[in-house]
């Protein structure tokens, strides 16, 4: 059986999150000290070699991303994506609430690597109580002089899901509508206020202190070889234990749901699990022995995404749930690009029709065609990923759709 392995949660419930001294006693800020003894190039090379891949969902090699920042840039920024808007996800909240200093240390390490003096944490508006904790943590670290000349500020989002997309998030920090930008240029070259900017997820930053301290080889040897390390997962829905866990990325869905989650609630049978948040794919029972790492998930048409696992038992109506999800995307589409604005609207319209027992086979065919277009041409990840729940549920649970069609 796979055991939990805690890297980013190693201090969880072991220290008082409000106390800087506790974090220091647990070895905190040794990673930053070591990072600052290294040259910027060596530090980036080390992070690259560890093969730490972005934990927000896109799984891009973290060190490689850092290497895009021009070395002669005078002003650069480090931005932490703490928007965590993906329904069913609360792992970043847990990571920060249990150990806020670790996030600050990770950001400061990145700051050293890309020569940034200013960092921003973009925290979703739903977490005002975490903003308080973060501001307290920043004050304490600053008054002890630990962060040196690296300054961190917290900014609060306003309940817009699309702001989890890095360029939309940047627009929001600038005080604008949170609409994604055209890429390229990527933020690493031109981001916040047109300056080179690194945007990483909370969990990505939180991994850095231990990676720097223990070395790239140590990290690269944990879990799946192509997506090494651990992943913090959150279990929701019809599972006995709705918990958060941190496991090596080689763990399988079945191990997570049954060994850690205690199986399906009330002794019912398993029907499906949606992995990666509300934009993730629906996975049936026969694929549960797949490891959770990014590439294995992609191999079965799913995505690891944020690491949220939403479990549904045999009594659940998949079409009703997907209709609900389609409504979410219709609401959250920012409206900047036509394929997403119109596409999410029509997807919901068709899903709602099918869910009410008024859909036809042709509706399903039209929807499939529409979603294929959206996957290819929507401007950002929101529109591109929004078809996934529809397509994967059609692939694995088509009979649930068909039984609701007009006969």
């Amino acid at each position, binding site marked *: 059986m796979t055991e939990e392995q805690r890297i980013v949660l190693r201090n969880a419930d072991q220290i008082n999150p409000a106390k800087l001294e506790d974090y220091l006693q647990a070895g905190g800020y040794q990673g930053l000290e070591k990072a600052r003894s290294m040259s910027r190039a060596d530090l980036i090379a080390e992070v690259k070699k560890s093969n730490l891949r972005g934990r927000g969902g896109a799984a891009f090699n973290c060190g490689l991303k850092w290497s895009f920042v021009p070395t002669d840039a005078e002003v650069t920024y480090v931005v932490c994506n703490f928007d*965590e*808007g*993906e*329904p*069913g*996800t*609360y792992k970043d*909240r847990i990571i920060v609430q249990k150990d806020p200093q670790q996030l600050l240390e990770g950001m400061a390490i990145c700051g050293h690597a890309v020569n940034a003096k200013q960092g921003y944490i973009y925290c*979703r*508006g*739903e*977490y*005002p*109580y975490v903003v308080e904790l973060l501001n307290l943590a920043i004050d304490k670290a600053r008054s002890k002089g630990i962060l040196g000349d690296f300054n961190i500020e917290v*900014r*609060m*989002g*306003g*309940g*817009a*899901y699309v702001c989890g997309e890095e360029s939309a998030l940047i627009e*929001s*920090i*600038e*005080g*604008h*509508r*949170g*609409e994604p930008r055209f890429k390229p240029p990527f933020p690493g070259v031109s981001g916040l*206020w047109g300056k080179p900017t690194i945007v990483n997820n909370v969990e990505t930053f939180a991994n850095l202190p231990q990676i720097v301290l223990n070395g790239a080889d140590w990290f690269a040897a944990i879990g799946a070889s192509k997506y090494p390390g651990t992943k913090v997962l*959150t*279990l*929701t*829905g*019809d599972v006995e234990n*709705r*918990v*958060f866990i941190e496991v090596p990325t080689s763990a399988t869905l079945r191990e997570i749901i049954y060994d850690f989650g205690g199986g399906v609630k009330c002794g019912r049978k398993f029907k499906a699990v*949606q992995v990666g948040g*509300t934009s993730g794919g629906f996975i049936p029972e026969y694929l549960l022995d797949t490891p959770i790492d990014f590439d294995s998930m992609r191999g079965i048409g799913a995505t690891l995404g944020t690491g*949220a696992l*939403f479990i*549904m038992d045999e009594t*659940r109506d998949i079409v009703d*749930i997907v209709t*609900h*999800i389609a409504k*979410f995307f219709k*609401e*959250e589409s*920012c409206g900047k690009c036509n394929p997403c604005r119109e596409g999410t609207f029509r997807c919901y319209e068709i899903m709602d029709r099918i869910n009410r027992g008024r859909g036809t086979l042709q509706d399903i065919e039209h929807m499939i065609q529409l979603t294929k277009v959206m996957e290819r041409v929507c401007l950002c990840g929101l529109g591109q990923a929004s078809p996934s729940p529809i397509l994967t549920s059609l692939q694995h649970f088509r009979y649930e759709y068909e039984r609701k069609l007009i006969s």
Partner: protein
Amino acid sequence: MEEYKQILNNYKDLPGGLLEAYHAVQREYNYLPEEAVREAAAVFSVSASQAFGTATFYSYLKFDKRGRYIIRICESAPCHIAGVAEVIAVLERELGIKMGETTADGKFTLEFTECVGQCQATPVITINGVPYTDIKPAQVPEMLAQCR
């Protein structure tokens, strides 16, 4: 009007401070008055359309007066299957208003929200930003009674 101005001015020199300023006004008034948005355009030297553009983009910012207790109910999938519809039914019945409305005495407002990141114990509602988890319909009257 003077008070908005002071709050807005506090953020005037903060880079990208417009959204932060809106949050600050809403914290004070429970909503974002339209006049404050017009004033913000002047304070931040942006056009009225830009000031309104930002203000209307974020679902957290509301232009209508709201109650002292803002109850937001999560309608994301995990709360949906956990039976949030029954919680909504009781809230609407107890308060005599529909979702999106404010009670005549200005005490309660009911709003939908998407996931508030407390999915370990669904369904979830928040009252003035504080999350309450694992809500059972039967608990609702008591929760409302405690809002004074």
